[in-house]
């Protein structure tokens, strides 16, 4: 037992988590400014700031040097897309942290409860039937309805089998998602020439997002963030199991439901806005846990920032770097999948625990 800690030292930066959070926030800001300048038309980052400052404050002096086209591109085309990508990335990463904690399963992600399948089904239905009740927002609205209906069904299934049991939840999620993906296949089959629209929506995209998308995704994100931060300490205890959490003063019946429903709603909002984007919610919590440890009070803010940076950079790559824009969901899976294999392999071979 003598000096047992020395054989496996922890390279954690948990004492510097405030510093890391600050650096990540700065990095996010830098990524936003740089990304707004990249694209078919190159814009200097200073002009980006001038355009933003001028538009926000109404100070005509700031945008005197910036031509109107630049201002419109930055404010009406690029920034909405960039901020939506950042909000969705942050939201998916946050939800990943919460799901992994509540389901006691490091392999859970925001879609474990079938939220993505529900959203996809709703969106496919709207696209197939050409629903236009809510104008251009018909598809996102139907996706959101599909996601929340799926969530309610999964919650109903698992709670009737005896409480917020992690295995019941995962199993119910898998069953419902399997049924829904069969439903989606059926919709694709009957869709005929519209099938490509459905497929493109499913692969996810941030193209032509507006300020309304920004507002929607960031509202859900902020409300979710407040709920998660409030319960961060309880989530730590829930990671140790329900009985342990209950004996340490957590309402082990109510708190998991509050967190699961909130996280699923945030995930539903993200999916509705952007389509299905995989691996962000799985990968980011893992990377951050390896960096600062599993304490959710540190993990949540860091995952928020790095998820936002990651998805924003991925979207910028597909928008401005690659010769052709490829769907963001495909890109994250192509990059994220192999990287996850690498992390997983490293853990198997006795690397740092995460």
């Amino acid at each position, binding site marked *: 037992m003598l000096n047992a800690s020395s054989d496996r030292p922890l390279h954690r930066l948990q004492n510097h988590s405030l510093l890391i959070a600050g650096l990540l926030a700065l990095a996010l800001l830098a990524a936003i400014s740089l990304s707004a300048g990249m694209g078919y038309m190159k814009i200097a980052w200073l002009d980006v700031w001038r355009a933003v400052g001028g538009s926000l404050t109404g100070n005509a002096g700031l945008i005197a040097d910036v031509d109107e086209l630049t201002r419109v591109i930055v404010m009406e085309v690029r920034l909405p897309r960039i901020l939506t990508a950042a909000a969705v990335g942050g939201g998916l990463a946050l939800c990943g942290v919460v799901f992994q904690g509540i389901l006691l399963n490091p392999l859970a992600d925001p879609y474990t409860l079938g939220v993505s399948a529900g959203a996809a089904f709703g969106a496919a239905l709207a696209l197939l039937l050409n629903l236009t009740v809510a104008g251009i927002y018909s598809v996102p609205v139907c996706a959101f309805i599909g996601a929340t209906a799926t969530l309610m069904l999964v919650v109903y299934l698992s709670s009737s089998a005896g409480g917020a049991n992690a295995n019941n939840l995962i199993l119910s999620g898998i069953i419902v998602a399997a049924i829904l993906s069969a439903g989606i296949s059926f919709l694709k089959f009957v869709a005929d020439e519209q099938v490509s629209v459905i497929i493109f929506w499913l692969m996810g995209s941030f193209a032509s997002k507006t300020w309304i998308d920004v507002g929607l995704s960031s509202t859900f994100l902020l409300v979710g963030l407040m709920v998660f931060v409030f319960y961060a300490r309880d989530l730590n*205890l829930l990671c140790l199991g329900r009985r342990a959490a209950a004996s*340490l003063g957590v309402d082990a019946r109510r708190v998991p439901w509050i967190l699961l429903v909130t996280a699923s709603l945030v995930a539903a909002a993200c999916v509705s806005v952007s389509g299905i984007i995989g691996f962000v919610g799985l990968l980011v919590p893992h990377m951050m*846990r390896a960096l600062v440890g599993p304490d959710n009070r540190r993990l949540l803010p860091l995952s928020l920032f790095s998820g936002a940076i990651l998805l924003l950079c991925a979207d910028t790559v597909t928008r401005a770097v690659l010769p052709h824009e490829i769907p963001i969901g495909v890109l994250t899976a192509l990059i994220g999948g192999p990287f996850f294999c690498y992390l997983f392999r490293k853990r198997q071979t006795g690397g740092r625990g995460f």
Partner: protein
Amino acid sequence: MGFALCGIGFAHPGKTIFDGLDLELPAGRFIGIVGPNGCGKTTLLDLICRHITPHQGHIHYAGRPLGAYGKRALARQIALVPQDYGINFPFTVEEVVFMGRYPHTPRFGAPSAEDVDRVAQTMADCDVLAFKDRPITSLSGGERQRVIFARALAQDTPVLVLDEATANLDVCHTLTLLDRVAGLVQNERRTVIAVFQDLNLASAYSQEIVMVKAGRVVAAGPTAQVFTRQNLKRVFDVQARVAIDDFTGRLQVRYKRSNHNS
């Protein structure tokens, strides 16, 4: 400060566990609970810790209904060392023991000097100080159990509930930890309610014994009066001899399987 259970009825889906259970658990005593597998021992502890609420009957703790306590107030009264301690997340040992102080610190507050002292003290008591910076996922079963034990001690409660809390420990650590909690009963009038599989540990440490079989209390009272050949035969269906062991000076049980043909 004891528990009074009155007319308790509880059923898991498809299986009745308790039907009209009455039981008094006095304060300031080391109380052992023994009984065969599936007799309702863990369910009894769950009721006491309020993880589940009885379908019938009432539980009083320290003269008040158990349901009247707030979640955190109850966590400052009763600590549990559970049977299952599988943890999938690499919290360090120190972080896990600190969680025992959560009920004493405000939600967004920093730990006080008292919290830090108590965590250090209990880590030393449970012999986990040497690996306090290691992730709990890298420890052996027995080491983990000591960490969870330390967390419950750090919770610093008048009542400590042990659910086979020493099942995975080596003999030396078992005796060390049980001596430690027996000392808390002796010196600070705390209450320990412990489920044992090992009858000799139960008889050596418990001042009172509750014998449970099929959801009924078969016998309850001072250890020497409850640990009898007749009771052990009724509850466990074994032939037993009970005597004070001259080596340890404690009540020891020896047993063999009953011969049903005789």
